[in-house]
Every structure is written in C-alpha cells, then in structure tokens.
C-alpha cells in the first residue's frame, strides 16, 4: 500500500500562515512575542533542513563509522543539556560525566539491543533505523536523568540537617538519603509513566502519526509505537537509576558522610 502524499515547499509555506497570524496578533496587542516566535521558527527551519540533508547523505553513504560519529555527537549534546538543566551540579568531571554517561550507557545499550534483536535491519546499524530510534530514546532518557539529578542535588542540599541527623543516629548513607532518593527517582520516572498512561487517549504519538500519514497500516504503526514506548521507558528508568545512584555515591563517602562540598553553588 502506497498512499503517501508528498508535500511541496509551497504547502509548508502555507502552513506558516497560522504562525504569522500569531505574530501579527502579538504585534497588534503589543505582546512582544513576535521576535521570539520568529527566531524559534527560523531556528527550527534551519536545524531541520540541515538534519534532513545530513540524514539523506548518511542513509546513502551507509558507513558504520559515520553513523557512530553522529550517534556519539548526539550523546555528547544531550549530555550537555543534562548538565545545563541542573541548578546544582556535581563538581568537576562528574558534573558532566555522570549524567551523560548514565544516559549514554542506558540509551545506547537499549538501542543496540533493540536493533540487533527486535527490529533487525541488515546491517543492524543501518542509520535509517538506528539514528531516529537512538534520538527518541536519548531524548526521553535525557529528560529523566536531568530531572532526577536536579531534584536529588537540590533536595540533598536543602535537607542537609535532616540527612545528617539520621547519619548521626547511626544510619548508613543509603538509609539517610532514602527520602531524597525516592523523590529524585519519582521526578525522573514521572514523565515516562505519564507518557505511557496518556498515550493513545490524550495524544497520538508523533512517530505513530507520522507513520500513519505516510501510509502505514495503523496496526503496524501501533506495534512500532509500543516497541518504542517500552524501549524509551526501559532506557529512561535505567538511566535515571544509574545517574541517581552515581550521584549518591559522589554526594557521600566511605565514612558515610554527606559531601555537599562536592556540589557547585546554586545558579543565580
């Protein structure tokens, strides 16, 4: 079945009409949003056009090394995003390395296993499958890890007195930090739990919509979407756990002390 309708650039241009209406309203009501809207829209156009060209050439070159290079770049950028989204970070290498490492390990690991066993393109690293899947999984893992680490670091600093009170009564570091750890894990897991619960009723996922629009049988699109959602949740959970336990390990030492000196000062 091939009911795919190609869009012309003119169609895309027409679609900007609604955005332009928003811009006009902003000007008219003096909301001062028009500049931001324009810049964001232009950024999106340039980024997506570049990605389109990049993907097109990657798909045709079909080189494992180039695919790996792009995948590594994606992990590094997402790692920076995790770092930037925290109010208080671990000092030194760990500030970037722990979040990026946990996300990269969980995201890349799950993607590779899914490609080699479930999806099964030939060769398994075929960029057309590998890169979009890695992107979706990394994006969600990134959000989970940054929320968990931000919550953990903020709460550990805020609740120093309560944590140290437990340590003083003979608790080990894990017991003392358990309430904060629970909060951090919850913060990291909530987006995927909510995402799974709302999918299909409130929102049709973008990937599934895209597949249906390009002519795929909805039943097939659903299978793909389920697979992706399970992979996303699994990778996010794994990344969140790794990053959280890594952070606890850095925020305490072998003498079961709370080491807030290993956190940076809060921003602003």
């Amino acid at each position, binding site marked *: 079945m091939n009911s795919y309708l190609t869009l012309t650039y003119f169609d895309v241009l027409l679609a900007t009409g609604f955005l332009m209406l928003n811009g006009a309203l902003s000007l008219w009501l003096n909301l001062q949003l028009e500049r931001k809207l324009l810049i964001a829209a232009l950024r999106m156009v340039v980024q997506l056009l570049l990605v389109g060209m990049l993907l097109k050439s990657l798909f045709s070159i079909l080189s494992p090394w180039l695919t790996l290079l792009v995948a590594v770049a994606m992990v590094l950028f997402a790692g920076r995003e995790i770092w930037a989204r925290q109010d208080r970070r671990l000092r030194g290498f760990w500030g970037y390395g722990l979040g990026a490492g946990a996300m990269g390990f969980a995201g890349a690991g799950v993607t590779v296993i899914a490609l080699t066993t479930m999806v099964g393109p030939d060769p398994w690293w075929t960029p057309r499958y590998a890169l979009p899947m890695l992107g979706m999984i990394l994006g969600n893992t990134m959000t989970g890890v940054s929320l968990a680490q931000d919550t953990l670091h903020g709460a550990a600093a805020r609740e120093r*007195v*309560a944590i*140290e*009170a437990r340590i*003083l*009564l*003979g*608790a080990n570091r894990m017991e003392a930090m358990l309430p904060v750890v629970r909060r951090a894990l919850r913060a990291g897991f909530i987006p995927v739990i909510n995402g799974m619960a709302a999918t299909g009723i409130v929102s049709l996922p973008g990937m599934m919509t895209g597949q249906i629009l390009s002519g795929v049988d909805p039943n097939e699109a659903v299978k793909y979407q389920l697979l992706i959602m399970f992979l996303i949740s699994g990778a996010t959970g794994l990344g969140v756990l790794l990053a959280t336990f890594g952070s606890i390990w850095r925020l305490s030492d072998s003498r079961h*002390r709370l080491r807030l000196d290993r956190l940076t000062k809060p921003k602003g």
Partner: protein
Amino acid sequence: MLTVKALTRLTIGPVDLSVTDGECVAITGPSGAGKSVLLRAIVDLDPNEGQVSIGKISRENTPAPEWRSHVAMLPAESGWWDDNVGAHFKNPNKITPKLTEVGLSDAAMGWEVARLSSGEKHRLALLRCLENDPEVLLLDEPTAALDHDTTLQVEALLRKELERGTSIVIVTHDTAQATRLADRRLHLEGGKLGEVAP
C-alpha cells in the same frame, strides 16, 4: 573514655583531648572559633585527620555508622525527616517515661513535627540521641532555646547520664551552665584548645 589525638579539620587543630568515663568537659570560645566543627570532626561527620578512640574502640577500625552509635552528637539545629515525632525514634514506647523528665508531655510521641517549638524539638532530639546508649555525648548548645527551669531539668537528665558513666563534651555560651555541669572547662580560640583555670 574518649581520647582525641592530633585532630585537625580546616583551621582547627591539632587538638588533643581526653575525657574520662562519667566526666563532663565544657568547651567555650568566641562564635566562629570552630566549636561545632570540632564536635563534627570527632563524630566523623566531616573529613578530618587524627586519631579518636573510646576505650579500646578506635575510630579508624570501626565502620562509621557503628562509630556514631558509640559517639552521639546533638547538633545545634535538630533535623527531622518525617511528619510525626514518633517516627524519629527506634522505640517510642521506651522514650515515653523520659519525656516528663525534660518537661514534655507524655503524649509528645504522637505530635506533629511541624507544630513543635524550637525548645521542644531540641529536647526531643536529645532524647533521640540517648536511644543508642552512647558511651560519649557531644552536645552543641543543648539548652540555648530553653528557659531557666527547663534548662535545669535537662541538666538533671545529663547528670544521670554522667552517673551511668557516659562521657560528655558540651559546647556552651553559658558560663553558669559550664560551672554547674562541667568537671573541666576548655577554651577554643585560634584553632587551639586550652585549659581554663577553675
């Protein structure tokens, strides 16, 4: 008996100190001299250098959580992690008879932490410290938030601990309290601990 040898932490030290069983030592000194820092170092709450032991138990050979069940510290600010008072105690029923000794209602185990006054919090935190039957008690301004009568009640409780053979190190601004309670007075200034003539 608590023995501290060449303890250093930040600007404090090297500090040598020994407190025999049932002895109370008061430490005075200007604000910011590091009195709390010294107590935190003894209980191993911050990285520090030096040897600390209680009788035959040496700190370096003891896992930290176990060490802290021998040496209890009452910080100047008490910490709470649950909504209910009782949840902060290992054995709330055992504590109930002691509540009236420090002027608290025997219903206090059922109270909400959010409604406690700072004086109530402090006395409850002291009772919580005693739950592990520690050999050494490190007290940081234990009666700062209390009125005179309650202060005397707390001191009576501490005297009972001393009679049991507990060693007490108390940091206080109150020289009258130091005189009432302590066998010896030490002064911490410029990172050095010195004896105060009685």
